[in-house]
């Protein structure tokens, strides 16, 4: 498609096209802002109209007003409920976010690699598969929250139980997803590999693994949010630091502003995580067409 505006001055059409390009590049961001604005607008309106009690549902312009005041509650090392932390700068806030992010990332990496290994193992080794599959299917529906006491019994307080919970939150689902992906590899792919002389190990290494990775990555992205939810619970109960701990403390001290401020941070961080995973997906799995990456 060529843009033929007959008679139009060249410079103008050039500017037009630059403007159009800019617009198409910015469009997704603009939609993000529009979507947020509606939500914030309704909330602020509710406050202005007197529906929302500013003590219980403080609108953004209140809970984002006094940032330094909020920052005081963030301490990467963790604090006891109610006590003011030694924090108070933007760095302490970033520190808290970094700790939560680290726990999520560690859990995701562990969960993804192990579920892939176990899933492939179940299909590769028949006996192993028959022994593992019932176990995986039975453990899969148990909520990660139910694992929380187990995590604390085994690992005590600290990073390990939080990482373990994130791991549990995605491991079983990802294992089952791996199995269904393996079963859905086009038969022709495998038949061709056999004709070209691949043995079983080579078929798994050179055909099945690359064939299932793209979809598994999508599944991982969808479970990213579950991982974030779980890490907050773990932090609130079993870790003593991180965004979850701040939320819990805010709850205990009836600090609604802090609750919403922390929720905002969680939302933004989760969004950034999704974007980051998307980026990794595009770079590492280059053969997946842009259509199947989907979304924003």
């Amino acid at each position, binding site marked *: 498609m060529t843009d033929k505006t007959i008679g139009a001055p060249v410079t103008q059409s050039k500017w037009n096209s630059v403007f159009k390009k800019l617009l198409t590049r910015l469009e997704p961001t603009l939609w993000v802002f529009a979507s947020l604005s509606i939500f914030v607008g309704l909330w602020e309106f509710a406050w202005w109209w007197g529906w929302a009690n500013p003590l219980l549902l403080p609108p953004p312009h209140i809970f984002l007003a006094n940032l330094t005041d909020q920052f005081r509650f963030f301490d990467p090392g963790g604090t006891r409920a109610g006590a003011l932390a030694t924090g108070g700068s933007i760095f302490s806030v970033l520190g808290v976010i970094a700790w939560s992010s680290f726990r999520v990332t560690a859990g995701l990496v562990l969960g993804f690699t192990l579920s892939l290994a176990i899933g492939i193992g179940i299909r590769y080794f028949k006996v192993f598969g028959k022994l593992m599959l019932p176990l995986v299917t039975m453990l899969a529906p148990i909520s990660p929250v139910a694992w929380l006491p187990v995590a604390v019994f085994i690992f005590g307080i600290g990073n390990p139980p939080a990482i373990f919970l994130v791991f549990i939150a995605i491991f079983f689902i990802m294992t089952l997803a791996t199995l269904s992906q393996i079963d859905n590899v*086009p038969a*022709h*792919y495998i*038949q*061709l590999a*056999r*004709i*070209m*002389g*691949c043995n079983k190990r*080579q078929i798994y290494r*050179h*055909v099945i693994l*690359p*064939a299932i990775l793209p979809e598994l990555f999508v599944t991982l992205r969808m479970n990213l949010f579950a991982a974030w939810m779980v890490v907050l619970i773990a932090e609130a109960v079993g870790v003593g630091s991180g965004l979850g701990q701040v939320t819990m403390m805010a709850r205990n001290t009836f600090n609604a502003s802090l609750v919403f401020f922390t929720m905002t941070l969680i939302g933004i961080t989760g969004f950034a995580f999704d974007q980051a995973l998307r980026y990794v997906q595009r770079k590492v*799995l280059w*053969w*997946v*067409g842009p259509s199947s990456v989907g979304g924003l």
Partner: protein
Amino acid sequence: MTLGLKITNVSKTWNPDGPEPVPAVRNLTLDVELGEFVVLLGPSGCGKSSLLYIVAGLEDATEGSVTFDGLEVAEPSPERSLIFQEAALYPWLTVRDNITFGLKIAGQSPKKQEESAERLLRLVGLVGAGDKRPHELSGGMRQRAALARALAMEPKVLLMDEPFAALDIQTRARMQGHLLNIWESSKASVLLVTHSIEEALALADRVVVFTARPGQIKAEIPISAPRPRDMRSPEMIDLAIQCEALLAEEVEKSFKEQEQELA
């Protein structure tokens, strides 16, 4: 020792122990000589493809035997390469890496692989497309890449399962010409399945007409006319009418059977 492909009294039943076994091929005997181009022509679902899978070694025959160059066919092998209706190129590999996939598995040196890739890309008319990804190619180009991948293994027989059925008519004609050139230079035998009479007559040394399911051989029609063949010559028109009559009977039969199954 007999060279070439020998199919002797082969029967294939799908789901033989199930409640409704499906006989696909019954008591079929067919030889394909070295360098011969044989086309299997028959109505859809008559077991032609099943026969190809058995010859490829991907499926076992329920009865009978298949030998190739005197050896029993039990396993798939690069010397009996199969080409599907869709190219089934690996989307995570470039066209070049798809073509050299089998060579890499066989442990050939990267330099040799590179040489083979260039030679084959030239042979199938895909020079310059080596670094492209399969989804960037048109259907015809993909099928040519699949052909190059099969040829890389220097097969003794090319098994082709309706290879051009998904292409538009113009691309199809070009691809048929292409295939003939490659076949003549490679000296491999070809066993090609199609339901298109025109395709069968344009390509084959011998057309083998199948009956409706379970597939049996209804007629064998040798064609000696030199290629490229003019489909409008009286000889070809005669053959086409003959094939059409043979096929029409079988299509009629399979329709009646389906109606009875439904009734």
